[in-house]
């Protein structure tokens, strides 16, 4: 089992490093003012946004046990707190954890 875990870790890290390495390799000829750079920048932001919304809407792991109404409530409250606190990132982040943990303890 121990060897299997090490092998799984190595496979996971290799699968992750490939994208980073290819990014460094193919960007060697790309200039930051070029159109292709702008396109990659847009795709990077879109992919991140897609990943974050997927993590919230179709979560994996422990978060998937939380009812979607609770998740949506926390998302909306966090956006509200973000704007109310003049775009501060710490308050919505910390409060989201506390609100979700509290709501979920009542829900189950």
């Amino acid at each position, binding site marked *: 089992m121990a060897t299997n875990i090490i092998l799984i870790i190595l496979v996971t890290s290799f699968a992750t490093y490939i994208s980073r390495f290819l990014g460094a390799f193919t960007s060697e000829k790309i200039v930051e003012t070029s159109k292709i750079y702008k396109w990659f920048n847009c*795709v990077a932001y879109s992919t991140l946004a897609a990943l974050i919304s997927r993590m919230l809407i179709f979560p994996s792991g422990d978060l998937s046990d939380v009812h979607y109404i609770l998740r949506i409530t926390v998302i909306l409250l966090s956006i509200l707190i973000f704007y109310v606190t003049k775009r501060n990132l710490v308050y919505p982040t910390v409060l989201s954890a506390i609100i979700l943990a509290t709501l979920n303890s009542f829900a189950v």
Partner: protein
Amino acid sequence: MINPKYFLKGVLCSRKFDSPAIALGASFIAIGALLKNLGFTIQESILSTFLTYALPGSLVMAESMLIGASLINIFLAVWLVNSRLYPMTVSIMPLLKHESQPRWKYYLSCHFVAVSSWLILKSNYEEIEKNYRIDFWIGIGTATWLIAIFSTVLGYYAADFLNKDMIIGLTIVNPIYFMCAMIGVMKTIQLSSAILLGAILGPIFYFISPEWSVLIGGVVAGTVAYLIGEKYGN
């Protein structure tokens, strides 16, 4: 070698009050606890974060292990979920490039590309002279990477004291932080459309293919946003 002044500047960037380090730390505490519950030893948990340093990839690895997936399946699932690192790397390397710097720095430091370090760099790189940006980036990467490793250890040992609601609370910290950070950078038509379209199309493509949804959603949304930006200006 590495310029210590700029390296330190990068390290210190992670210490700011609203730094992504908070979200990073919280989510890797949850990962540490998860790995312990999966039967990893402390050494294996450290090795996992040390070598992978990508949250969704570690989650996919854990889930794949739970269902007893083969190594090939784990490889493909992790590669797909972490393929977002490709456009992310391409979108920062040209900002760091300078002919006076050796290439090994770029190939080694690309390991540090993750959402938190990427966002720190994106909001601070303009203040740094171009020939030292790579050292600044290595500083950011080293700091965030060490925070992730330290938090994994913390989560591993705290696992016995964390109940399920606390773990759930920790797991939402990461997406909520980055959701707010993304809303915060929506300052041009191009970036706003990229982020909004990505957030909408990612889950829509999930109905067609859960594995490919992030990648396809990201490429389609990014391309449309690029065209919108080109047409209506930035």
